[in-house]
């Protein structure tokens, strides 16, 4: 337990030190060293997040206070079951991405700066997930954003990559500025930027709530939600994703599509369940907001699925598939608009969390395996990639398994996530929700089949070049098998996801999150804070 606590404090500083050491060691003129340092950093992240995940499983939510300052007075990192699970997922996928980057190095002219940005991106994602402080979330969001812009523009000799990064970065900078305003508004209203303390205030202020207070909270939630949906590319903020994700280097596409978009979903849920729960200041409006998120998620799913069919570029096809699946994840997470049926909300939110996991693994796998095939074919065009998969059977099989999981075939994990969301909505009597999930799944299947048939089952294509390094293929295959294993063992593993959903949705879970932070504040200081929960 003590170890897990130390790891929670160490994680982001140690990671960022790994990132900043790389350019210094450039003086040694070693070509391998940057990759090795990045591997060390991501390996440490895997160990640390695993220990944290284990610690949360054993002892409930954990709070690490930086500099020993209690919550509300200093920055704290707070981990409950929900973000421990997502952090665990992030670190493992990132480890595979770093290993894949070492394979991909022949496309990168100066690997040391690339690894600085990649490890910086990992720091940003893990910081966003673990932080218990709304302002620290802003800082980590900026760390994540600026590394992501840099990575998208990494092939700076390609005009398209620079153009995509410019469009992404310009609106992204506006978005993070607006999130800053949202935090300032929260501070102006509640006098705190700590998530647990905000959560207490938003509940106890209900008694003396005035209209101005309600509208201030609503305004700040609206601003924050726009930013989160921008970061996770929910319609109508998805315009940057189909440009930026394909133009980035392939391992970065995997990281952006598999991990970065999750941060938006995570933060939305944190704001609308933990900070502003069902009995908070914005109680009746919150359900409307969640319903809007649900509708946007459904539109996002349908648009992503339809646009996928029209693509000829395999990376653009995968990018639109990300839009589609983030829509489905939002449809699960936003189930809180159902009033009075906690069982149903819990099921659907659990489905949303499983979908984040399933989509993260599958999409990272698909981008990376398509990268191998793109290398062999020398093109990203599906017509020119015809039959390339036949020369790389292991990669093709892992690609097909990834597509099967995304399409929701039994017994892959992607099936169970959609099933749980649909079950949640059926349980609540909102049949349309379940129908929409099925419709979106059905609409997305032609897009996947198009990619599979073009790359694997067509004939006629000749590989432009023989790949010399194929040691990455078994790793991709292992990742594909993990989708199958997670699905087959789902009946034993589902309590893990259920606990995550419980931490978010139920009153007990949120109270646990609050009390762990609240108990750390000394009694004398509580006198100044004016509330007793």
């Amino acid at each position, binding site marked *: 337990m003590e170890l897990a606590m130390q790891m929670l404090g160490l994680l982001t500083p140690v990671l960022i030190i790994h990132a900043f050491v790389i350019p210094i060691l450039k003086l040694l003129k070693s070509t391998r060293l940057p990759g090795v340092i990045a591997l060390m950093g991501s390996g440490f992240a895997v160990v640390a997040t695993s220990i944290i995940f284990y610690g949360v499983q054993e002892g409930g939510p954990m709070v690490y206070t930086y500099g020993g300052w209690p919550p509300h007075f200093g920055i704290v990192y707070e981990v409950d079951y929900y973000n421990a699970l997502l952090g665990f997922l992030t670190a493992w996928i990132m480890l595979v991405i770093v290993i894949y980057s070492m394979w991909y190095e022949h496309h990168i002219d100066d690997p040391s700066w690339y690894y600085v940005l990649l490890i910086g991106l990992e720091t940003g994602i893990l910081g966003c997930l673990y932080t218990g402080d709304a*302002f620290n979330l*802003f*800082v980590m969001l*900026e760390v994540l*954003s*600026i590394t992501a*812009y*840099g990575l998208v*523009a990494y092939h*700076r000799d390609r*005009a*398209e990559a*620079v*153009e*995509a*990064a*410019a*469009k992404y*970065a*310009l*609106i992204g*900078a*506006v978005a*993070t*500025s*607006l999130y*800053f*305003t949202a*935090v*300032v508004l929260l*501070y*102006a209203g509640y006098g705190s*930027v700590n998530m647990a303390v905000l959560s207490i205030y938003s509940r106890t202020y209900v008694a003396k709530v005035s209209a101005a207070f309600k509208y201030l909270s609503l305004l700040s939630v609206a601003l924050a939600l726009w930013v989160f949906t921008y970061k996770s590319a929910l319609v109508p903020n998805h*315009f940057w994703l*189909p*440009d930026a994700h394909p*133009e980035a280097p392939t391992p970065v596409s995997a990281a952006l599509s598999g991990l970065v978009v999750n941060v938006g979903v995570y933060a939305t849920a944190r704001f609308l369940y933990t900070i502003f729960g069902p009995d908070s200041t914005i109680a009746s409006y919150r359900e409307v907001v969640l319903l809007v998120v649900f509708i946007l998620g459904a539109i996002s799913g349908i648009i992503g699925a339809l646009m996928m069919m029209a693509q000829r570029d395999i990376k653009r096809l995968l990018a639109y598939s990300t839009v589609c699946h983030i829509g489905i994840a939002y449809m699960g997470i936003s189930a809180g608009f159902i009033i009075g049926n906690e069982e149903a909300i819990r099921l659907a939110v659990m489905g949303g969390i499983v979908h984040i996991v399933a989509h993260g693994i599958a999409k990272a796998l698909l981008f990376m395996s398509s990268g191998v095939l793109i290398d062999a074919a020398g093109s990203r065009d599906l017509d020119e990639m015809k039959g390339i998969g036949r020369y790389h059977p292991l990669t093709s099989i892992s690609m097909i398994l990834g597509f099967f999981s995304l399409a929701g075939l039994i017994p892959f994990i992607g099936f169970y996530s959609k099933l749980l969301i649909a079950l949640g909505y059926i349980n609540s009597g909102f049949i349309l929700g379940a129908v929409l999930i099925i419709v979106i799944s059905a609409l997305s299947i032609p897009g996947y089949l198009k990619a599979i048939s073009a790359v694997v089952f067509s004939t006629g294509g000749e590989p432009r070049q023989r790949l010399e390094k194929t040691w990455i293929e078994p790793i991709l295959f292992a990742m594909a098998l993990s989708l199958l294993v997670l699905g087959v063992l789902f009946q034993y593993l589902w309590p893990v996801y259920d606990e995550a959903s419980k931490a978010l949705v139920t009153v007990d879970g949120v109270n646990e999150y609050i009390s762990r932070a609240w108990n750390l504040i000394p009694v004398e200081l509580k006198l100044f804070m004016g509330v007793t929960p």
Partner: protein
Amino acid sequence: MAVDFAGTYLLLVLLSSLLVNFVLSIYGIFFKPHFTKKVIALTILSDTLNTFAIYIGYRRWLEGVNPRPPVLTTTPTWESITEFSRRAVDPLPQALVLTAVVIGLAVTLFLVFLGYILYMHYGTLDMREIRRLKG
């Protein structure tokens, strides 16, 4: 009288100018075609929002109670803390703004360099002509 003038009228002017600046910068970011103008509008936006944050922490000069810096110079007693909380300016928004300014500097620098590379590729910074991607 003079205090009232500074305390209410000037603050009103400040708030309305913040609002005007906000709208103008949003207009500039989304509707001006030139990349550099967009970046300039972005810096105006972030400066506006930073000033707004400072305004949140600002304490007006009211009824002869003049605000003072949030520093405790003596060993705190109950009375001194009460007096402190009645008079001191809120330091947190300033700390937040300091962080935001530093981050804004980094983002602006990045965008300016991106604009330079864009110009090398396209020979123009007019975003209406920079659309090789489908969107």
